[in-house]
């Protein structure tokens, strides 16, 4: 009974995580410029990876694997904002102008 519930919860988490990853990457394709696209990958790195890893955590009984899964999340949580900031600041420094709503005419 408990095992079945855990299995269902893990199903839900993994599927939700996959969905978040898909939506975030869709943002990478659909959004109009670099600065807005950064938010899409931010979704993948935080909630997408988080839900996916949580779902995997429920599938394992080995504590070593559980610790490694949590470590993946911790590393992502530290490195993802640093990467985003480095990219945004470099793009700003390189003279890229953020897209505004008034630029929409350029978009198909």
């Amino acid at each position, binding site marked *: 009974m408990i095992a079945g519930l855990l299995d269902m919860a893990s199903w839900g988490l993994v599927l939700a995580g996959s969905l978040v990853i898909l939506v975030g990457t869709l943002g990478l394709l659909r959004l109009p410029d670099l600065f807005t696209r950064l938010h899409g990958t931010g979704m993948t790195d935080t909630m997408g990876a988080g839900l996916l890893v949580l779902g995997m955590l429920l599938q394992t009984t080995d504590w070593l694997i559980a610790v490694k899964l949590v470590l993946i999340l911790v590393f992502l949580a530290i490195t993802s904002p640093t990467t985003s900031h480095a990219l945004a600041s470099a793009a700003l420094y390189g003279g890229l102008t953020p897209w505004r*709503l008034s630029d929409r005419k350029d978009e198909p």
Partner: protein
Amino acid sequence: MRHALSLFLILFGLWLIMSGHYLGWLVALGAASAALTVWIARRLEAIDHEGHPLHLAWRGMPYWGWLLVEIVKSNIDVARAILSSPAAIDPSVFKIKAGQRDELGWAVHANSITLTPGTVTMAIDADGTFTVHALTRASRQGVESGEMDRRVSRLMGEA
């Protein structure tokens, strides 16, 4: 010295977790490699209060919990912005003044802003002014309300 020791313990603990083998000879090699890394870090002068802010890990539990909820909320916000037509987004660039006193507080604050999807810290000036890019109007208001600023200040023990 206290920081060097804690760095050694973290590295060695990480080694133990990753290796999964607990023979005496191998564990000794792991300890030696952790010690070598600490020695190199000392030579690089990378060991200090900012290098691995352990004091924040425990005291910050309520903050990390709050941040998690914020991340989930903003994820839903960004997902809605992506899935609805591109007209739903309204990107803007604005500046806020961080209330923290030192660079570590700024780093925590700026990283928290970036970690919540929908807002990215683009630049930090020498006086603690952040330039932030926001995807939607709601995400901009979330940062401008200053709640995160207050919470980070409390986390850093400044307020």
